[in-house]
């Protein structure tokens, strides 16, 4: 097992990179992966203030937007594209709910990590290419891996809880 440890001086790494998002999946890709072969009928909902209050009370999670992007799935169940507020940024995610109203799967659609994105940014990386004193890093691969203190997924699990409540209180009572 080979490994090489390098300390790159921070002055060689001026932090000028704008925050960039890593896009994992589009809404359409997430739909195809989470409900293979199904078709999707948009059933977008604007929640009333009473509904928002009821969802907040039942889930103990704040409802930030009255707009709910939900699709009815031909094979049964619902697909919802929503977002939560992370530490600094919005995190878009998709929730698949099966016909029984339970979570089928969750996929994060985009993610923004400040430090990780600085590392990913080509302009950021170009600044230290060849600047190390010993053998320079072979930067033929992007630095896409970050090892560090665990980031909590609490925001997303709270978002899932809020959408399950929204499903139970609003979507499950919708009729064609």
């Amino acid at each position, binding site marked *: 097992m080979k490994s090489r*440890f390098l300390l*790159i001086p921070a002055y060689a790494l001026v932090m000028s990179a704008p925050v960039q998002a890593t896009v994992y999946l589009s809404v359409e890709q997430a739909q195809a992966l989470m409900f293979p072969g199904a078709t999707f009928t948009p059933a977008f909902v604007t929640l009333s203030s009473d509904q928002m209050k009821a969802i907040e009370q039942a889930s103990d999670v704040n409802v930030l937007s009255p707009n709910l992007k939900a699709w009815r799935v031909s094979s049964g169940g619902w697909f919802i594209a929503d977002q939560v507020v992370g530490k600094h940024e919005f995190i878009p995610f998709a929730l698949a709910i099966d016909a029984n109203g339970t979570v089928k799967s969750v996929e994060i659609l985009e993610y923004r990590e400040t*430090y990780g994105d600085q590392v990913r940014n080509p302009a950021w990386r170009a600044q230290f290419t060849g600047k190390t004193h010993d053998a320079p890093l072979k930067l033929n691969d992007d630095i*896409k891996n970050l090892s560090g*203190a665990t980031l909590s*997924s609490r925001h997303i699990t709270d978002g899932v809880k809020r959408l399950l409540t929204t499903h139970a209180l609003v979507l499950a009572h919708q009729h064609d």
Partner: protein
Amino acid sequence: MLSCLPINTIERARPLLGTTVTIRVQAADAALAHDAISAAFADIARVHTLMSFHEPDSDLTRLHSAPVGARVIVDAQTAHVLRAALALSALSDGVFDVTVAAQLVAWDLLPPPPGAIWPTPGAGWRDIHIDDDNGVRLGQPLWVDLGGIAKGYAVDCAIDRLRAHGIEHACVNAGGDLRTLGEGPHIIAIDTGETAPSHRPLLELGEAAVATSSGRAHVTDDHRASPHVHGLTRSSIGRHDCVTVVAPQCMHADALTKLVMARGAASVDLLEHFGAAAYCQDAHGNWSALGQSSLGAAA
């Protein structure tokens, strides 16, 4: 020989194991890559369900709710991780101990498990008995928290699954505990939790696992509290340190970060035992290397 097919990089992320797990795969066939990623996520979700400290149906919750001394059959995977944890406890004379959860609950860093009997003070890893048929008995009331080892195990399972699906180049990252597939070289940036670092640490790896632990992000007004606990003294460790371990298996890398935090240079034998190396940054920002590799600072 170089393939003529274009190589797709496919990356997906799911909230699992209390963190965000990302899986990145490079493959010519995008559909095959997505199938492999979905299967790997399913394996991680299974570990999450079996070994969660809080899920009402987890093996650990069943163990914590059972009468003291009762034999609880756990899943073979849970038994495997418990055996690995107990082996690490034996090798470290109890510095690594999966029963320190009681201390974390006392510090309000962890909610108490649902419906569990409160642990007996002084209960520890020697009170966990596991037989050949995956039966587990607790000699005293205690709480097992596999948080310091199961995340790494889940990453290992995901890598095995990707490999079984024919994937040759990938990285699975569970909130900073990661493992690579393929010779790379893979470049890993280490997030030390420093606010204004003078240097940025990078690792260049072939196929290997990396885990980083730091108590820095958790430093609060409560000077006793830290997410990392010394198994023998039950006091907090690593409140101002950052430890990165490189090992063949992520389960070992994950667990060894805590041991290096607790024992420092005395953990060299353990690192060698698992073919691992550690990179440690102290409270003053100074780096040192332990184990297989030597420190190659660029500045």
